[in-house]
């Protein structure tokens, strides 16, 4: 097994060594249920699709993903295990990617456990399962984006609470960057080009097109490059903070 794989396996099992994994999964499933059936009016809409589920997922992720990512590096720094990890024969990129992949696999597992929703909708009607599949792919990409942001932030602090709150705020900004709440903040002083650029970073916009069943290359590139960018920033953050 490769070193990245070994590290990823350790990290992934680490989630299940403590109650964190179980609590997270239960709460995630519970909240997706509430959003889909009560707030999303799944039955009243009378349509065989998972739109009510996917519509609220970015908000749920914004809150829950920082809870997974907050411990990724701040815990290593606080307990000193970062010194152990960084003196093992593996590169910084290996370590960052291994830990990220473990967290991503964990969110994928939580996402996969929403399959009863898919069963329900197929039992009640005949939905376009290709649209649903696209929605799941989009959700996974979006989760990866949030995780990469959270992982990078957690490398900057030893304090998990700070990591959580900061990641939450940044994820919130990325969710809404196409909306007045964020754009008005920049419009007052930034050039139009920057405002346009910021508005194109909206997770909601990119996710909603995928979720409608259109896997546009631009959206995939957006999420992939965002993940790559934040993981790279993550490496720089670890290097810069190692000595403190």
């Amino acid at each position, binding site marked *: 097994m490769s*070193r990245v794989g*070994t590290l990823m396996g350790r990290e992934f*099992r*680490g989630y299940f060594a*403590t109650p964190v994994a179980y609590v997270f999964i239960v709460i995630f499933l519970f909240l997706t249920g509430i959003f889909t059936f009560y707030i999303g009016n799944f039955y009243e809409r009378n349509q065989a699709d998972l739109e009510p589920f996917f519509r609220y997922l970015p908000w749920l992720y914004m809150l829950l993903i920082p809870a997974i990512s907050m411990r990724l590096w701040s815990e290593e720094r606080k307990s*000193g295990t970062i010194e*152990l990890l960084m*003196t*093992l*024969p593996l590169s910084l990129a290996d370590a960052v990617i291994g830990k990220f992949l473990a967290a991503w696999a964990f969110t994928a597992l939580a996402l996969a456990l929403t399959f009863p929703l898919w069963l329900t909708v197929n039992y009640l009607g005949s939905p376009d399962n290709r649209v649903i599949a696209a929605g799941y792919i989009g959700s996974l990409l979006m989760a990866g984006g949030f995780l990469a942001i959270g992982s990078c932030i957690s490398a900057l602090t030893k304090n998990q609470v700070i990591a959580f709150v900061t990641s939450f705020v940044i994820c919130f900004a990325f969710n809404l960057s196409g909306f007045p709440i964020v754009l008005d903040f920049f419009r007052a002083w930034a050039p139009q080009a920057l405002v346009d650029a910021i508005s194109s970073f909206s997770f909601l916009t990119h996710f909603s097109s995928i979720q409608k069943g259109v896997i546009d290359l631009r959206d995939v590139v957006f999420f992939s490059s965002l993940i790559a960018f934040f993981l790279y920033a993550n490496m720089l953050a670890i290097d810069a903070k190692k000595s403190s």
Partner: protein
Amino acid sequence: MDNLIEVTELRKQFGNLVAVDGVSLAVKRGDVLGFLGPNGAGKSTTMKMITGFLAPTSGAIKIGGRALTDDPIAAKARIGYLPEGAPAYGEMTPAAFLDFIGDIRGLTAMQKAQRIREVIAKIHLEGVLNQTIETLSKGYKRRVGLAQAILHDPEILIMDEPTDGLDPNQKHEVRSLIKEMAPNKAIVISTHILEEVDAVCTCTAIIAKGRLVFSGTPGELEARSRYHNAVTLTVDTSHAQAIEEALRGLQNVEAVERARHGDAVVRLTALPQNGHSIFTSVQALTQRHGWTVAEMFVESGHLDEVFRAITTDTRPSLAGEQK
């Protein structure tokens, strides 16, 4: 050219603080280097640089003859490292932790199983293998860290305070383990316990305020003591005054120190000038006068006294003597 570790003019600066300032070291196979210094002197920072955790501000590190920066991963593969405080993943059991280290060190399944078995037996971890590390006592945590460091049987072993927090029996075990491994490895241990130097080290380096202030064998270190070759006599209190004066009169005796030792006896220590051997003349003196001496022995030197003298006085002349 068989220095496994070669460090030249190593320097590390954190902002305005110079943590390590021009340290040079060389460690051969078979050497156990005792790295001494007061807390905050730069021992841990130096070790963090040698193991590739921190990048030096300037200076060169060679591991097995190759620059560390050439291929850090290959260098790290040859090193076993016990970081300060023996950090480990608390939620894992020692068994799972060692298994993980074995995998990431690239051991094959068979090597791994065999090495884990050997290391567990050597370090006595049998009893706690399936308990999570966070629930272990400080001594066991340290042993898990030690097991992790030697699992891949590295040529180079770097341990930051390996016996800190251990009870005397455990300290003894760890020291025996180090001595047992010493012939085939280059070992660096940092400590502020001076008895450790006598117990296991073949050479010592003392660092203070980031600068190397001494390097040599433990014997050379002792030779720097005012007490090196001093003669201590335990005598009856009634004779003490006369003996003390007679000792002062001897050739090559610099001073005589007196310490109460029990009710009726006094301990006198004659300090030699420039480390001369004065035992025979002291012995002749006692015989000539027919004094009854309860005990009489030659001091080899007080390490703690040398340590204090060297580390609180960091004039450049002392560092200059290294060359």
